[in-house]
């Protein structure tokens, strides 16, 4: 798949293919959805198996489950305040779903569902609907004052209001494109350098020595991608929290 006719094909890794045979084809269940399911099962397993002991002094798995729990809780409460506890399960689900999607995608032969703009936009759209509904439910019509900051001169309204509306509407776009672009760029880079390894490795006697160079780059890239995978999940979660703060407090 990586090398087809001695050309670099970095994009076919993102193609959707049905899994589970005929059943999967009939319900449109692709390998992307399979990875979502695996990620979800891993998340539930981490929490359920990790917390099974309910120990006062936690073991390794329980400690990691508790660490992630408190990490996300501090993030949400720190951004939104005490009212944010209501949204904690949502932000936690979002953070874990994106984090596990990014991390699973780094395994060989795995598919990265966060590298699909449709998936990231779907998640960002849920966030957008949530923050709008929360803001409308809490503030009613007063919510629309969000688009015109207090104290601004009235004659600036024709400029400020369109800018604020566009910036509000572009939130799901920027949120989804940031994650999508980061994951695609990382995986394309990995694939390109991996293809270099194969191509250069076939250059006769010196091949293996030259091929060591892109291999070293790829090793460094994998470490870098682990960082990006965590960072993008964190950014997704913290931006969601900031938007929730805006929805709850209006500025």
């Amino acid at each position, binding site marked *: 798949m990586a090398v087809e006719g001695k050309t670099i094909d970095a994009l076919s890794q993102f193609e959707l293919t049905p899994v589970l045979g005929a059943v999967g084809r009939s319900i449109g269940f692709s390998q992307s959805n399979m990875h979502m399911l695996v990620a979800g099962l891993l998340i539930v397993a981490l929490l359920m198996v990790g917390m099974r002991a*309910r120990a006062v002094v936690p073991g390794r798995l329980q400690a990691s489950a508790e660490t992630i729990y408190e990490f996300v809780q501090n993030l949400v409460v720190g951004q939104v305040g005490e009212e944010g506890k209501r949204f904690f399960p949502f932000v936690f689900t979002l953070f874990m779903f994106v984090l596990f999607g990014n991390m699973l995608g780094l395994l060989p032969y795995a598919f990265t569902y966060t590298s699909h703009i449709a998936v990231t936009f779907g998640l960002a759209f849920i966030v957008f609907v949530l923050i709008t509904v929360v803001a409308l439910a809490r503030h009613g019509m007063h919510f629309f004052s969000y688009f015109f900051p207090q104290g601004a001169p009235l004659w600036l309204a024709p400029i400020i209001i369109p800018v604020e509306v566009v910036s509000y509407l572009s939130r799901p776009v920027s949120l989804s494109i940031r994650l999508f672009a980061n994951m695609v760029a990382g995986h394309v880079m990995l694939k390109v350098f991996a293809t270099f390894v194969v191509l250069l490795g076939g250059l006769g006697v010196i091949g293996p020595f030259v091929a060591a160079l892109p291999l070293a780059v790829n090793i460094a890239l994998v470490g870098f991608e682990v960082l990006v995978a965590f960072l993008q999940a964190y950014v997704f979660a913290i931006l969601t929290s900031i938007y929730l703060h805006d929805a709850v407090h209006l500025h």
Partner: protein
Amino acid sequence: MPQLDFGNPLMISQIVWLMIIFGLLYFILSNYALPRVEAVLEDRRARIAADLDAARAAKAEADTALAAHAEATAKARAEAQAAIAAATAQAHAEAQAHADTLNAKLNAQIAASEARITVARDAAMGALRQVASETAESLVAKLTGRADPAAVGRAVDTALAARAGS
């Protein structure tokens, strides 16, 4: 780019499955998994708080015990000081009384001795007058051949009185 191939029917179904899986995950996490974590964390917090409270109570108890001990020590020290002071005072008084009786006895002895000395001196003085008179008489008799005891006695008395006076 396969991600932008929105004509692919798998793209639509991917989103539908995403919503289903994400919704299911949210349901399971918010209803089962996260409350379990919260319960364990809450339990630990409560336990630590209870332990801290117990430790604080024990410390307060120890503090009161320490204060009682310090108070008892101070009291005992004060009692000991008082006892020492009383014993010293008593010893002083006894010594004083002893010294007083001794003084009185010595004074009495001194007085008795003085009285004895006075008597002895008076006796000696009396004897002296007789000896002086007799000596003077015999001297006068030897020198003059006669003696006037009355005149000699007067002269001796005068001389004695002059000596005693000087």
